[in-house]
């Protein structure tokens, strides 16, 4: 477990020293969300209706941008190889990198979402559900995304190929995540959606690190 903490601390330290990378992804989140009213029209009722979907899609796309950085730098400078040769289980170290990715790319989105939600005139209760859903869903995005990031290490067409692989797998998270808010608006219980998101999170925690580790070993061969 100490090695896990070391990896998280290291990646957080690296992110702090390259703040511009991190902040750009967050600004991307804000910009993309703002594009929709500009493209569709600023009628309040319409915005309120599309808000959960728009915010979730913007969150997906911003997470995608950050995925590129998860393993690429370590792969390029040889530190990923060293992790594979560590006596500590690689899956543990990979888990640490995924956790750090979420802390740097996912958690800030959760914090920013209420602000965007206000721009779309969502009510307080809806904002609360949205934040909860994102809190459960963004780790899933990091987990699933890590598999794609590892598979496309050093491969031609990296970024676009990564999106092609990962976005279809993100769809259930998107559906349950935005569905939670829509259900609440429609007067139904959002709990079912949130539980399903929780289930996805548990599944992701169990399977993703192994798949990602296997993909990394293949990439460094």
């Amino acid at each position, binding site marked *: 477990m100490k090695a896990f903490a070391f990896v998280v601390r290291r990646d957080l330290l690296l992110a702090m020293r390259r703040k511009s990378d991190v902040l750009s992804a967050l600004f991307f989140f804000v910009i993309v969300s703002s594009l929709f009213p500009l493209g569709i029209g600023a009628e309040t009722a319409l915005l309120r209706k599309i808000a959960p979907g728009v915010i979730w899609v913007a969150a997906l796309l911003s997470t995608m941008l950050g995925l590129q950085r998860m393993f690429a730098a370590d792969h390029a400078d040889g530190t990923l190889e060293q992790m594979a040769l560590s006596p500590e289980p690689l899956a543990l170290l990979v888990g640490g990198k995924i956790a750090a990715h979420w802390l740097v790319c996912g958690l800030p989105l959760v914090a920013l979402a209420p602000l965007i939600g206000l721009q779309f005139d969502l009510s307080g209760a809806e904002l609360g559900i949205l934040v909860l859903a994102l809190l459960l869903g963004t780790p899933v995005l990091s987990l699933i995304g890590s598999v794609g990031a590892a598979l496309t290490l050093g491969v031609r067409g990296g970024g676009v190929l990564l999106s092609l692989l990962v976005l279809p797998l993100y769809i*259930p998270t998107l559906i349950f995540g935005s569905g939670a808010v829509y259900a609440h608006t429609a007067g139904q219980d959002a709990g079912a959606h949130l539980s399903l998101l929780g289930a996805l999170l548990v599944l992701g925690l169990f399977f993703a690190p192994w798949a990602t580790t296997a993909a990394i070993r293949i990439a460094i061969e």
Partner: protein
Amino acid sequence: MSNSIIHWFKFASPASFYPLAGRMIPWFWLLAAAFGLSGLWLSFFVAPTDAVQGDGYRIIFVHVPASWMSMFIYLVMAAWAGLGLVFNTRLSSMMAQALAPTGALMAFLSLWTGSFWGKPMWGTWWIWDARLTSELILLFLYVGFIALQASIDDPRRADKAGAILALVGSVNVPIIYFSVKWWNTLHQGSTVSLTKAPAMAHTMLLGMLLMALCFWMYAIAVALQRVRAIILERESHAEWVRELKEVLA
């Protein structure tokens, strides 16, 4: 018993599988033709006209079998890829590579025929119902698999990476299907659905079954042809390839 074990592993080498596949292919084309002709005859001439949808519904005899096959092929492809990953056999991975385009074609065919069904029935070229949407996502999964293998230069790495993607995909397919059905009911979209086919007359079911078998035999025939081409390409440096009739010609 030990005899048959040796027998099977002999065909795990591309060199021995190549001629075996060559001999099997014509039989599968024959079976595909036989099932196809009987299936089409049933669907056009024997199955009764539907009370509600008229004769236009007959496209489900292509649409539904194509959907079934697209799902089935994905699982078979993932299984072959998984075998190739676990046992490190090149031929298993080549089979997965050969199946992918056919699976993608089935998914596309399902979407295309679904669209043709929707237009005369409900006036739109596309309906966001559970089946069509899941089919669309399955097509994305196929395209992703093909794109990943195409982007990786080293064939062995492409095999293994593709295998992981296919296995992750197959775990996700039921989840995706479930979530799309959930999404459909939540948003109360169209109340009509392409999955609500007319009540099945005995002959209709038989027709779909025959067409499904036809597509299955077709898929095997085409996959075997494709895997032969892949074998030639990837084993081109080997002695036995250079001595083949078709290569010498």
